[in-house]
């Protein structure tokens, strides 16, 4: 089994750079991020050691912005193809973040997505769409950009900013609205990265993630919820389910496959993870494959964050049958001191077959690899009973 998934977050253009800057500054152990822009002044707002950056299209724009022209954005990326391509070396998964409607992200993201995929790296684009008040012109440019991006990236997750209004109430100032959107996206990205790169007890198999992304048919939805204090698990799950990006849970119900990442502190308990699993399971259709993973981060003590990526379409490879994976739950509190044994008695399956298995396997359950998880009343019985029952040894 492959260990950590190498994931990089690339922020492109004004909105993307703000999000990755937040990501890099807020956490003591941030994911690998790169800020990519054509505007030298914008990039130099953050110290280089905090925010690794790549200035592109210098020859075209002279280190200034693209002026909101997607065509210039595209040319800028094409001009620096080689430097951009290098970014993807050694990564399994690139998350391209930007705001559509402007110049650079709208024009350059499709180019970058293609470069990522050419390097054998999966490309997920996480893009915001303009608020209504930003005007019709911007909206139409964003839509054109989204279309181009959907053709280029493995999955595009569009986050319409307008949907945030419902969450914020009417009297929020514009600057604050943008900032809140950035906070939400950066927290979600952090959780996703923790899950992939620093897997907890329930890691995700890259093959599973890949199957989800490859099968998603280009479109995904995204949700994030955070909770703190005693009822944090339920609170986080409720906020997630009420998340405007998921249209109050509707997109979750319609989703064909769902990836759930739960990030919590060292104090996160099995019961909490279990509760979250149940709540999310309850919001999806019973037959929807659900990949669930947890990660533990001391920085999250007292809090829980849940990130959901939902594929609106999902199809298994035509060579085989989809095996349903249900929510698997593990207790981060009882992780043994050393990694569990990973004996391979069963035969190694080929990559092609692996892609068909969409089951979250808590680590240490390799014994049951290749077989359907034993699930009774939403509980994965493959996980040792003493752990699910929180029995101390």
């Amino acid at each position: 089994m492959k260990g950590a998934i190498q994931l990089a977050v690339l922020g492109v253009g004004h909105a993307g750079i703000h999000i990755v800057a937040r990501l890099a500054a807020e956490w003591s152990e941030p994911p690998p991020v790169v800020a990519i822009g054509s505007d030298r002044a914008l990039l130099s707002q953050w110290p280089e050691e905090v925010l690794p950056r790549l200035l592109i299209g210098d020859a075209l724009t002279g280190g200034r912005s693209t002026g909101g022209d997607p065509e210039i954005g595209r040319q800028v990326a094409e001009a620096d193809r080689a430097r951009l391509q290098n970014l993807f070396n050694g990564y399994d998964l690139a998350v391209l973040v930007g705001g559509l409607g402007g110049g650079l992200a709208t024009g350059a993201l499709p180019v970058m997505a293609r470069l990522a995929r050419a390097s054998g790296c999966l490309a997920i684009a996480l893009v915001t769409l303009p608020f209504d008040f930003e005007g019709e012109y911007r909206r139409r440019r964003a839509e054109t950009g989204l279309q181009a991006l959907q053709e280029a990236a493995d999955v595009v997750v569009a986050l319409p900013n307008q949907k945030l209004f419902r969450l914020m109430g009417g009297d929020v100032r514009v600057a604050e609205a943008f900032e809140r959107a950035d906070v939400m996206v950066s927290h979600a990205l952090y959780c996703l990265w923790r899950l992939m790169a620093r897997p907890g007890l329930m890691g995700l198999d890259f093959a599973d993630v890949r199957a989800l992304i490859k099968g998603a048919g280009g479109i995904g939805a995204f949700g994030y919820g955070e909770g703190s204090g005693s009822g944090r698990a339920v609170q986080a799950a409720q906020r997630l389910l009420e998340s405007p990006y998921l249209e109050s849970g509707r997109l979750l119900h319609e989703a064909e496959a769902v990836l759930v990442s739960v990030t919590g502190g060292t104090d996160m308990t099995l019961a909490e993870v279990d509760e979250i699993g149940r709540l999310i399971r309850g919001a999806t259709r019973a037959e929807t494959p659900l990949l669930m993973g947890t990660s533990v981060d001391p920085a999250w003590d007292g809090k829980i964050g849940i990130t959901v990526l939902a594929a609106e379409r999902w199809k298994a490879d035509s060579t085989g049958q989809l095996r349903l994976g249900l929510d698997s739950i593990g207790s981060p509190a009882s992780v043994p001191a050393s990694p569990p044994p990973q004996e391979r008695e069963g035969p190694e399956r080929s990559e092609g077959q692996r892609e068909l298995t969409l089951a979250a396997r808590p680590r240490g359950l390799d014994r049951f690899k290749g077989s359907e998880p034993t699930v009774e009343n939403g509980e994965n019985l493959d996980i040792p009973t003493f752990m699910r029952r929180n029995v101390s040894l």
Partner: protein
Amino acid sequence: MSHYPPIVALEIGTTKVAVAVGEKQSDGSILVTGFSREESKGVRKGEIIDVDTAQAGVRRALTAAEEGAQVDIERVCLAVSGSHIRSEHHQAAIPITSETGLITEADEVAVTELVKATHFPPDREVLHWIPLHYTIDGERVVPRAAGMEGSRLELRMLIIHGDRKRLHTPAILVRELPLEVESLAFGGLCSALGVLTPEQKKEGVLVVDLGGGTTDYLLYASSTIAHAGSLAIGGDHVTNDISYAFAVSTRSAERLKREHGAALVDMANRLQTLRIPAELGFQERTVALGALQTVIHERMDELFNLIKKRIGDHPRHEIRAGVVLTGGGAKLRHVRELAEKIFRLPCTIGVPTGLDGLTGQLDDPEFATVAGLIKYGDFLARRQEEGFWTRFWRRFASWGRRAASGPAIEENGG
């Protein structure tokens, strides 16, 4: 030398492949003349996940049994298990229209066919149609109805069915050898046939076959099979729990389970430490006996409670013969005591009974399924031998008898 063709029982289990060859004697008894057991690979939770590896083990086991029995195996009866196997009751009723109001054998056949017309989704295949009892005019419950009077005849049957594709995987594997598959039978039913006496079936008994990958169960209550099913939890889970709890290899975990495992914690010695020597990739470590047994206890406690929940509430007088544990897991220390505590019923360990010949080798709960499968194969052979009408006649004539000592078993459906 018997003039009947040998009955060959094949079980492709998660832990082992077992083959038993039985030869029918002129006095009707069955002599076991060949037997073999091989490690099973490529099977998880009772289902084949790697055909080639599993097939190699099956081939070895068959060859060994052929040599032992001095026969050429051409056809086998195959036991199947897995969580996809379920059971349900179905019933149908017909009006009795004859002037006399007398129920005939033709009426019994008609109502049987009506139950069998039950629609199943195309991905399900019926393994067994088991007639349970007739109800005449909604009130009289009888094992057979022909010859009685009434205006409405109802038949209740237990239908054991499984996922078509998964049932066919082991059958295809066997056909590739190439061998003919005479019939498929649910492993839990075979185990019950293998270890139960007619008296136990009559008094009511729960049979739990604790396998390596699955736990099959079958409940006889009120002289009929009330429940049958399979849970994808087995000895592998116990081993995995141990290896996970103490970060030891599967091999060490298996050894700990066999040598020191118990379903109840030995409180007096719980602090005793067990040393697990270092092995490739794992450090040397010590494990407290109490911790080991706690891990096992939790798993077995959960498993029995799941079965208890599945079979539902039954008054004690319906299960007078209590619980019979069989399968390899029945050899776990104190598993009998734990089952008694949870089911609140007397509990015994079931070993194969009612066969002659190599019974010394078969005399182990692990071989309940193959032993029962030989009996099942014999049952089918007897029926095949009989002509069509004789078969019907005998079947109906013997229903009363069989219902008293356990239900008659129908051949494969589908």
